[in-house]
């Protein structure tokens, strides 16, 4: 990995990182990605697989009326019961 790859990744992840972190992470992430590349060398033993997904019953599409005061209290910014955010457009 190169430093510009790390910078691109941090942008994609929506996390600002410092120059020091870019430096550190370049080596660390390269090592980690080298290791996980081992999956490429894996020897498969089976040809086909049976699906083992159990079908769970779905519940009724009914609103369970919940008091949302606890959630609204934790908004970073609000206008009455509405969440206020920075301009999007």
């Amino acid at each position, binding site marked *: 990995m190169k430093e510009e790859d790390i910078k691109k990744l941090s942008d994609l*992840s929506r996390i600002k990182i410092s120059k020091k972190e870019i430096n550190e*992470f370049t080596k660390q992430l390269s090592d*980690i990605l080298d290791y996980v590349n081992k999956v490429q060398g894996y020897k498969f*033993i*089976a040809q086909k697989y049976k699906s083992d997904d159990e079908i769970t019953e779905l519940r009724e599409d009914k609103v369970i009326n919940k008091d949302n005061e606890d959630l609204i209290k*934790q*908004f970073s910014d609000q206008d009455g019961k509405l969440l206020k955010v920075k301009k999007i457009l």
Partner: protein
Amino acid sequence: MEEFTINIIKEGLEDKEFSCQELVQECFSNIEKDKLNDFITLFKKQALQQAQDVDEKIASNQKLNSLEGIPVAIKDNILIKGERVTAASRMLENYIASYDAKVIEKLRDKGAIFLGKTNLDEFAMGTSNETSYFGPVLNPHDETRVPGGSSGGSAAAVAARHCVFALGSDTGGSIRQPAAFCGVVGFKPSYGRVSRYGLIALSSSLDQIGPLTNSVEDSAIVFNSILDQDQNDMTTIKPDKVNISRIKEGMGNKVIGFPKNYYKLSIDQEIKDGFENVLQELKGMGIKTKEVDFSFMDEALAVYYIIQPAEASTNLARYDGIRYGFNKRDAQDLLESYLTNRDLGFGKEVKRRIMIGTYVLSEGYKDAYYNTAKRVQQDIKFRFQKMFKNVDAIILPTTPSTAFKLSEKFNDPLTMYLADIFTVAVNIAGLPAISLPMVKKPLPIGLQVIGNFMDEQNVLNIAYNLEQNFKFINDVE
């Protein structure tokens, strides 16, 4: 008290040997005195009030519920309504849970007393409890060493008798590895046995909640108390309780598998010696053993460090400080607020894993990494199915070393990841597994018992028999 286990404590309460208030007060005194930093939040007032209610019930000769009066610690990534839940992160430092996790509801119903929330690696990412925003936890056996992670606080609290049992969560070994480092029992049920409703998600296809206890029997009791088929968690399966009397029966003709060429594994000599002793014990008990092919452990770890960060990057995308959580409040626009809140809210390890996850899911790399990992995962499940046709359970050491020193591995993430090499394959395949102490001095060493999917009854039976037959040096006090 010789044993700090559920039934012994219950007897003591019912026989009025000590009061519930004395018991709970003793737990809090030890927590304060020992300074292990194993708790992030303590519920002193509530717990002592609950203890008083229990004492009144005992005084009026009423029968206690199954876990009534038992002091319990809960990992701080499990929600308790109205209480702070931090995931050991600055991002959620002041976040208040708006509902009870399903496991909390169930323990509450049975009368358990919650002492507080235990420390963990940030967002459950770690193997040493050193990535916590609230500082590291110390190993009660040697305070210069780590307790393991990510459920380090829970493991330390159980080992130090700060509680009778604790709940932890296990995604790649986070219950079993700290249990091994701290000399306690740590049990991860099959994927889907315990509802994840109210567990702060790390890797949704791998996470499972489970107990940390002082005995195998206790882990069975707690498992029976928390398992559930929950409409709020669509991945939950049939809640088959285990039969505790049958767990205590002999192993009969069961065959135990162990890794072929285990002596060639990259593990410390003391671990090899401990494991060799276990194989001798089994011989002495007349139990048949059989070699199994565990040569795919490296690839299992690689699969894990692709799937887990990928799922984590998705699960942690919700944390932007806007609806809740850390918000620096000086951003000019929306993008800047995301970048800043997540930069300041998350620690280094969390950032690393989100970035790895983002990478392996990105255009051009997803097929090579993520899709390949999913295919290999299916094959690993198949390998285990094949193994369990010939053996009833597989044993191997839980960890490649004993508890390492604080800061020893902290700056080398890859070395840290390798600490999980014996535990991750279990999560990849969704199997049940338990770690119990096979050596206690000078440092604890854990033995892992892995069973087939949904085969908790069998895993606990084998673990119980091993526990009864191990010869221990005295417990740590």
